[in-house]
């Protein structure tokens, strides 16, 4: 374990990280329901082979992955592994969940064009609602992240994360 990078969290920070964790506990129910509805859409005869379905599933799996990664990072932050790279890691996971939630909403509307039968339409509507609940959760989680890092630090880590996946400027 890279002990040279280790950071110490004070009691206040630990409390705020626990609040973040508790919010992800609430989110778990939303995420599990969303993924189950998406499995239902995937096995549904009218939508299983619809255009956009493969990418819609891929985006959904990345939402689940982003939440899980965030929780994994919080678990690791309560150990001696807590460090600057781990702080960046947790912000990356949150941004993953957010980014792919945007993609999922776009792709769902592409899939929806294929669906005409009432049961399928009802399912699409339920997924739309579940994606909105997911957005609300991610917003609430972002507030917890702000409280934990402090707004400026959170934004600066987000900027670093974005820079690390952008072509550097010349010179």
């Amino acid at each position, binding site marked *: 374990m890279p002990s040279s990078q280790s950071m110490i969290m004070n009691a206040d920070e630990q409390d705020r990280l626990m609040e973040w964790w508790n919010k992800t506990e609430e989110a778990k129910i939303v995420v599990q329901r969303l993924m189950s509805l998406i499995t239902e859409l995937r096995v549904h005869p009218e939508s299983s082979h619809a255009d956009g379905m493969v990418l819609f599933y891929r985006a959904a799996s990345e939402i689940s992955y982003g939440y*899980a990664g965030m929780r994994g990072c919080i678990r690791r932050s309560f150990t001696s592994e807590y460090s600057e790279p781990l702080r960046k890691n947790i912000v990356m996971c949150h941004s993953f969940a957010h980014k792919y939630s945007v993609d999922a909403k776009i792709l769902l509307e592409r899939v929806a064009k294929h669906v005409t039968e009432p049961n399928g339409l009802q399912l699409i509507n339920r997924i739309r609602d579940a994606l909105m609940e997911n957005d609300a959760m991610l917003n609430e989680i972002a507030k917890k992240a702000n409280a934990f890092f402090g707004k400026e630090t959170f934004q600066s880590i987000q900027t670093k994360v974005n820079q690390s*996946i952008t072509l550097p400027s010349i010179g």
Partner: protein
Amino acid sequence: MNSTFFEWTAEQRDSYFTAIDAVLKKGMAAKEVVCSITTGFRSIPSIRTAPGLNPYHATVADIGYGFDAARGTIKRLRQGESISLAKEMLVFDLDTLRISEKQIRPNFELVENWAQPDTSYLIELSKELNGQIAEIINEAIRLGQAILGPEWEIIRTRIQNIQAIPRL
């Protein structure tokens, strides 16, 4: 004809759900830590563009999805929702986890070749947790097969059409 849980007693149904959900729940912490480590690989210069990292990441996400989806379906059924394709959904998610479990090791072996000594603890931890996840997937499938009996295989044959849709 839709396959339903109607022919089962409430007790049978509940024990099926309780058993599978309990097994999957045991694997949640492992999958969370594996997902977090995989995201961390994106910041490690020697690994971030390693061949194999993208398919490994996709497999890890597939597994995360499968756990969440199956648990979500069980929760919906327990809350009394009637889902006509419930058995298909559960067999589909659990059997797809079986396929992902087979993919995870070869994909990770590619990534491993690029690790430096300072990341070896993350590699070792991932391997250990992937091993735990594999056991949990196999246990959940064994339970599913035990409870559904010959119906498991019949449903599995039906859902193969959907499994055959490429997932990248």
